[in-house]
C-alpha cells in the first residue's frame, strides 16, 4: 500500500509536489530521508519539533513507526486555533 501525503496549514505550499509516499518505505524515519532527498527545504521544515505527524489520523511520536500499511500520513504545523 502506498500512503497519501498530506501537508496542513503553511506546509501545504512547501509540500505541494509530494503527493504520495514511494513504495518500499517502511518507517517514518525512512520517509523523512526520502523527503530530504526529494525536497531538502521541505525536509528541514518538517523536522521542527513543532511539526507533528499523524498516521491514519493518529498522532505518532516514534520515528520507527511503521508506515508500510498506512493510507495517509499527515504533517501538522502548530495550530492557529478556531
Amino acid at each position, binding site marked *: 500500500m502506498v500512503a497519501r501525503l498530506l501537508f*496542513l*496549514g503553511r506546509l501545504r505550499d512547501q509540500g505541494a509536489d509530494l503527493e504520495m509516499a514511494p513504495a518500499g518505505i517502511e518507517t517514518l524515519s525512512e520517509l523523512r530521508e526520502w523527503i530530504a532527498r526529494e525536497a531538502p527545504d521541505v525536509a528541514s521544515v518538517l523536522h521542527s519539533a513543532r511539526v507533528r505527524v499523524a498516521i491514519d*489520523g493518529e498522532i505518532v511520536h516514534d520515528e520507527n513507526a511503521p508506515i508500510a500499511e498506512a493510507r495517509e500520513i499527515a504533517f501538522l504545523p*502548530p*495550530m*492557529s*486555533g478556531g
Partner: protein
Amino acid sequence: MSVSVQTAPFDVQAETAAFCAGRTDVGAIASFLGVCRDATAGKGVSTLFLDYFPGFTERALEDIEAEARAHVGVIETRIVHRAGLIHPGEPIVIVLAAAAHRAPALEVVAFIMDHLKTDAPFWKREDGPHGARWIEPLPSDHQARASWEKK
C-alpha cells in the same frame, strides 16, 4: 452533543432554531457567534482561509465538547465551524449550550470558545492586499485557555 465542520456557510437562525426546538427541560440557552473580521481595517479586503484535517479536526472538537459536557448542569451543546474560504462579515463558528439555569449555559460556551481558540486543529491564513499570512494563537488566547485549569 454534536459537532459539524463544513466548508458551506451555516444559517445562524436555522442552527439556533433547531437547537432550541422542542426543549422543555431547559431554562437557559446560551450562544456565541464568531464572525470573520476584515483584518485590513478598510485598506483593502482580506479573506480568511481556514485549513483543517478532515476527521482529525472533528474528533478534537468532539473532545472539547465532551470535556465541556462534564460541567455540572449542562444538558446539550452544539458546535458548527466553517472551514475553507471565508469572507468578512460571514459567521465562522457558532457554539450553543442548553442548561437548566443560566450560569452553566454561559460558562460552558466560554469554556468551549477558550479551548477552540487554542486546541482546535485549524490553520488560519489571512489573504489581503499585502499578501498571505498564516496566523498563530495570541498569548491572550493561551491565558484564557489556561485560566480554566485553575477552576
